[in-house]
């Protein structure tokens, strides 16, 4: 907090400029446009799709050799509007080995994707991987 403001008199403030600088109009105009866009977008989103329930689909991006076994890369996409919190996803290698793993995504926002990986001891057959969403909760 500043200590003390020196006393200023009216005369000191007499340098008021009648015409508004063009830059002020530009900044304010852009600000108004941004404000209208943000409020408009949110309202439109809220009234149309935002409260559609979360709907998760999982894509296996690939299986790669890693230092500690084999890495299965996943992308989770939420097709719904609401956010899925603590989304748990289970992956089972389809062959006889029956190796399985589970991963939790803290948040998958609506219409958004998140990526993650699971590690397996033996190379799983990408075509035979069984992927399943166990569940999620509202944030």
């Amino acid at each position, binding site marked *: 907090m500043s200590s*003390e403001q020196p006393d*200023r008199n009216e005369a000191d403030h007499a340098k008021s400029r009648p015409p*508004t*600088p063009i830059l002020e109009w530009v*900044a304010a105009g852009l600000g108004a446009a*941004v404000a209208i866009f943000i409020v408009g977008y949110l309202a439109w989103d*809220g009234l149309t799709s935002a409260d559609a329930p979360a709907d998760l689909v999982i894509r296996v991006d690939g299986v790669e050799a890693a230092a500690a076994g084999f890495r299965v890369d996943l992308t989770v996409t939420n097709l719904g509007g*609401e956010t899925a919190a603590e989304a748990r996803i289970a992956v089972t290698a389809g062959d006889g080995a029956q190796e399985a793993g589970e991963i939790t995504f803290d948040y998958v*926002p609506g219409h958004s994707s998140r990526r993650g990986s699971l590690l397996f001891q033996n190379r799983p057959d990408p075509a035979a991987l069984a992927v399943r969403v166990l569940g999620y909760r509202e944030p």
Partner: protein
Amino acid sequence: MNPANRDYALELARAAGGAILFAFPLLMTMEMWWLGFHMDRLRLALFVGLGILLLVGLSTRVGFGADTGGWHDDLLDAFSAYLVGVLVSLGLLVLFGVLHPSMSSGEWIGKLAVQSIPAGIGAILARAQFAETPEEGQEDEPPASYGAELFVMLAGAVYVAFNVAPTDEIQLIAHLVTPWHAILLALVSVLLLHLLVYALGFAGQEAWPKDTGFFAVFFRFSLAGYGLSLAVSFYILWTFGRTDLTGLAEVLTMTVILGFPSALGAATARLIV
């Protein structure tokens, strides 16, 4: 570039500095990023709309344009401050890796929207705090109307409450306290609001209104300010979805707990603005 424009560019840069200083704690709070995508879209739209009204009101009190005169100038100031708030939030969130091209447009806009208002408030307050030539001292101005005093307290309550409201601690404290704690906290909040403004001799301390007794001042300003603080707390909790599916006792406890920082904000704003 003509001098008026150059001066205004400097004002904008100063506003950006203020926005960064006031908003960086929120920009670095992960709950705020999460709220950006999971809070209710319509409540967020309403919050941004009300926040812009708040900016307009604040700019009538401080403003950051060089010439603080006329309502159209206040309107211009408010929207420029909002632009500065959005740009500062955008820049820092991208720099922190919180916003990423792979994210959906809804996530980008939500994360920006929730940060833009506190950053915009910072942009406006930069004028009050860091302006090179202070406007003539508040002493010289006609005393602010009662409504204006209440408005300033409201703005301060919103800003400070907003800084803690997104954290989980509000809910956690509500679980830790007994109703007696909550009542005591409410009393402490009112007392602090009163003492900070009138008794402790901070710079900018309000002069005791002439010919007014203790109770009149206490009721008209301190208690009214606390009422506003509680209303602000409840509104922010509702906006963030903290009141949904929650029992009345829990909601009231959270409101009182958030009312503590709100009251501090209301008091501080009267000292600053």
